[in-house]
Structures are given as C-alpha cells and as structure tokens.
C-alpha cells in the first residue's frame, strides 16, 4: 500500500522522535542517578509525534513558542543536543548560557522562543510574536504550544479574541495529555473538548490524534496554510499522553499503570517504525544504525556538558539590562 508521505519524511520523523526520546531518557538518568541536573524537569516522552508532524508541516523560519516542557521543541527546531544537555547541566555552553535550565530553553537562531514557566503565559506572548510577523509583512506563521491545564487560563480568551480580530498568523496547539499535574481535563471545566473553546471567537478548530505523526502533519499543514494566506489563527487540540510523571518528583497516584500501558501501546515511534519496515523504506539494520547514531549523539551531549565550564560568577549581574550603563544595587 503506497503511503501518503515519502520515505524521507518517515525516516526524518523516526530519527527526530528517537533523538527526543533518547535525549530525554538520558537526561532523566543524569538527573536521578547522577544528580547532574537540578530544578524542575518535565519530560516530553510520549508526545514526540507532535514535534515530528509540526516540523514537516512548517518552515524553519516559523517561530515556535511553548511552556516548560520544552526540550523536545528545541531539539526539533535544530538546537544542537550538546547545547541542550549543557543547558540542563547549567553550563556556560548551554542554549541559554546555563541561565535558563530545563524550563527555559531558548534558541532564537533556530526560531525557538522558549521555554516559559508561567502556565499559559506563552499563549499571549506567542500572539505577540504573530503580531510582529504580520506587522513586518513576513510570510511566517507562529506555532504556539500549551497544555490542557494552560487552556483554563484567562489569557487564552483575550489572546484568541485579539488574534481573530486582527487575523494574526498563528496556530494555537493545545497538547492535551489529559493531565495538568494531577488534575485530569474533566475536572477542570464544563467543556472538556478543548478545541471547542475556539467557537466563541469563530476561530477554526480541529481535534487531532497527537500520537500519530501523519495526522499531526495534516492538521497543522492545513492550519499553517490558512494562516500564511492571511486567513488568521486556528486552534488545534492534539490528543496525546505523557508517559512520565508531570515532573521528576511526581508520584502519579492520579492515574493507573494500565492507563499508561494502554497509551504506550500506541507509541508514536513504534507506529512510524512499523510503517517504515512494512514499506521497505529501510531495513531493521538501517534503523539500528540510526539508533546507534542517536545513542552516540546523546552520549556526546553528556560528555560535552560534563566538560563544559560553569558560567563565570560575574554572570549573576549580566543579561539583566541591555543598557550597560546601569549600576547595580550591590549593598
């Protein structure tokens, strides 16, 4: 059976999703086993198909912005794994000079606007990124990601209204993994289909299977096309699942092991792998070679982070103002 997407697309998806997953698993190990990473740490494991599908449905120049579950997005946009791991370690070579940490990855050279820690804030900030694209007359479309929990913040409504009023080039993507920490979606609202929140603003909306790269690509491509052509924003609700706890310290008493296993059985990477093998896009040996390459990249990122220097102590008072004439209040 011929596939709708090319061999190259499938192999790209496979490689990207494996990179994200293996990076996350290694980083978690360095957090738990080695104590090399501190602070809050939110893994993207399970949600990789959204990154994969969004990447093939957009251009490099399209700005992306998300919350604190951001490692996968930086990697997808092209931030070197070395810079990502170094950021987790807090090293000077990190993608935010070690100043951001896990929750605050940034890489403007790859059009990645972070990495935000206040739930829902990026819905508004992303709308502003889109305003600037429209103002400057570019052809770029902003992809703005947030969780199901974030969808209950008031800023969503103000942003949706403004974006529709001005027909801003933005795609709002709610990564609905069914939980905001320990709170399931049905405990947060009378409206449990999050995509319906667009209705009040007559914003086009879609609900997509976020565990399948093909479906993500199709849904996002439609929305991006509309936005690029001046048709304004779209809300897409991606049904997805996080395999790991909310953060490393989450005991996960709010869900059953069976539920987690059920979702793991629809694993997005396994689905792509299956399609690749079934269509002879690659042999198992080829895929093993990709896996080995990724394992090498991830190992290298740890080595790089280990060997990188800490930020200089003087950095405490740097990057606070652009204005270098400011005199800091030091006692």
């Amino acid at each position: 059976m011929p596939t709708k997407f090319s061999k190259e697309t499938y192999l790209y998806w496979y490689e990207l999703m494996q990179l994200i997953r293996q990076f996350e698993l290694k980083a978690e190990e360095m957090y738990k086993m080695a104590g090399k990473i501190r602070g809050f740490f939110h893994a993207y494991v399970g949600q990789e198909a959204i990154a994969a599908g969004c990447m093939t449905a957009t251009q490099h120049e399209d700005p992306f912005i998300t919350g604190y579950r951001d490692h996968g997005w930086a990697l997808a946009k092209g931030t070197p794994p070395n810079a990502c791991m170094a950021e987790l370690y807090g090293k000077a070579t990190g993608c935010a000079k070690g100043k951001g940490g896990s929750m605050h990855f940034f890489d403007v050279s790859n059009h990645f606007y972070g990495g935000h820690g206040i739930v829902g804030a990026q819905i508004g900030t992303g709308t502003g990124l889109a305003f600037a694209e429209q103002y400057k007359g570019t052809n770029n479309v902003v992809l703005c990601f947030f969780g199901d929990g974030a969808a209950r913040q008031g800023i969503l409504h103000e942003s949706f209204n403004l974006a529709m009023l001005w027909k801003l080039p933005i795609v709002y993507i709610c990564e609905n993994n069914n939980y905001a920490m320990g709170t399931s979606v049905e405990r947060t609202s009378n409206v449990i289909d999050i995509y319906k929140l667009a209705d009040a603003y007559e914003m086009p909306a879609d609900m997509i299977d976020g565990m399948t790269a093909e479906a993500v690509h199709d849904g996002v491509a439609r929305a991006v096309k509309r936005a690029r052509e001046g048709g304004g924003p779209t809300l897409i609700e991606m049904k997805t699942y996080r395999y790991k706890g909310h953060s490393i310290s989450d005991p996960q008493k709010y869900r059953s092991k069976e539920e987690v296993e059920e979702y793991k059985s629809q694993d997005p990477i396994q689905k792509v792998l299956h399609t690749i093998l079934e269509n002879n896009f690659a042999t198992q040996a080829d895929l093993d070679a990709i896996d080995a390459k990724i394992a090498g990249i991830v190992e290298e990122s740890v080595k790089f982070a280990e060997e990188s220097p800490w930020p200089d102590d003087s950095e405490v008072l740097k990057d606070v103002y652009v204005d270098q004439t400011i005199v800091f209040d030091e006692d």
Partner: protein
Amino acid sequence: MRTIAFREALREAMSEEMRRDERVFLMGEEVAEYNGAYKVSQGMLAEFGPKRVIDTPIAELGFTAVGVGAAQNGLRPIVEFMTWNFAVLALDQILNTASKMLAMSGGQISCPIVFRGGNGSAGQLGAQHSTAFESLYANIPGIKVVSPSNPYDAKGLLKQAIRYEEDPVMFMESEVLYGEKGEVPEDEYYIPLGKADVKKQGRDVTIVSFNKMMKVALSAAAELEKEGVSAEVIDLRTIKPLDWHTILESVKKTNRLVIVEEQWPFASISSEITYRIQKEGFDYLDAPIRRITSADAPMHYAPNLAALAIPDVARTVKLVKDVMYTKK
C-alpha cells in the same frame, strides 16, 4: 514537646480553624485530590469534603477573584497559591480590589481572606520560580504580610490570620522549609501579627531577618560567637505591620544593624527598616546600617549563579565584621 514539620503546622492551623468556623474554606490548585502540590493540605479533603477543600483549574486570576468576592460576602477563604510566583497573575484582584475595598466603600466592605503559599527561591528553579515577594506586597496599603521561619510561628500566625484578621493577609511560606521540623505544642495557641521575636540575645550587633534567611542569620551569629562577636538575632515574623520598635530597642543596645533578606534590594524590607531606624535611632548608631539581599537580577539556573544570588553565611559574617570596624 512534640516536633512536627512546617507543612503539618500549617495543616493543623487550617484544620483547627475550619473545624471551628464553617465559613473558612481552602481553595487552590491541587489542594484536594492531590493532597497539595507540597502536601500541606494532605488529608484535608478526606476530613472536610469537596465543599470546603476545593481544587481549582489553573486560573489564578479567576479563583483569587472568587476568593475576594466570597470574603466580601461573609466567608473567610484561604486561597493557596502553588507558589507566590503564580499569584502575580492575580495581582489585579489583590491590589486593585482586595486591598482597596474598605477604603473605596467608606468602611462598608472588608475582605477577610488569607492567601498563602511557597515564596522565594527553592534551589535551581530559574528566573520565573524564584521571586521573594514580601516587599512588593508590603508596599500595598490595606494588606498585611506574614513570613514565618519555623513551624511554631507558622501555626500560631496562620491561626491568627484565619480567625482574627479582618484584612487580607499574604502568608509567605517556603518550599524548602515545608519539611523542617520544630517544636509545636499540642495545646491551641495564637500569635498576634506585628510582633518580632528576639531569637538570640547579643551585645555587639543586631541581625534582622525573616523566613528561610533566618537560618543564615542564626548560623552567621553562631560563627561570629566563636570569634567573640555577640550578635542579637531578630526574626521579624510579620513584615507588615513592621515591628520596628523591637529592632530599635536592640539597636539601642548594640548600636549596629545588619539586615539579611531574600528580597531584591531596591525598595526592599531592609530599605524600610533602614529608613525607620536612622530616623528613630540616629544617635544610637555607631556604623552605617548594612544589608545583604538577593542579587539585583532575575535568578539564573546554574548552581554557582543561583548560590551567589541569595545571601549566605560567609557573606553575612563578613558584612557584620564590616559594621564592627569601630571595635576592631
């Protein structure tokens, strides 16, 4: 006496007041079914049920407004912020409504509400999860600010705030103190707001602090003791109203003052104390009042930068030695 953890002291305070008064309820993110993001409200849903221990969606502005409205209409809400960093979304309701209701209504409508949660830095949490907000809220007329350093004070002050305070109270805890144990009697007690506590008597210098920085202050005092410097250590406990009389009495004895706090420096608690003490105690001072605050910058993630951004024992000791110059 029995010892309990800080989080248990807070829980006892809330539970005792809820048993006493039907009008008191607890609302916030993950407070009920998850038993609290930091397990402060563990078991409270089981005891009081979902009418009085209420999980909210992530909607700080919305649920704060509900609390403020409920307080104006006869209830006595306790609103938990997972941390005070997120209360910024609700600042409109706190500053523009809660703090001003009494004034705007010509004394008709008060707002007896307690907002509480973890405040300040808690390790390497980065810029958006590390702000200490005491000075920001203390700047607002109409609200009170409490910032306890130990389980005993936390319980007595929280009970006082819930039961007796008719004005909005900002109750600032610390994620890193929740597990700290301390002596708390079984018998019921209240601690009035606005009274500082002299934790250690001393002759040579006064060190003022509050919340988790009290550890730095007390450790510095212990270090100094070894070197023959006798420091008096004062725990403010309540930031607003500020008990400057206790500080002044101490300064009259020691003639030197050092303040240790986690606020950003500009217009901080130490700024306020410094103004008051130079005005009321100018003739008693033998050295400039000095302070150690957080760095005048957002907190960075890297371990060395995070450690440098907040006061520590070594730098506090050095500062005290600086103000002791007249005796050297």
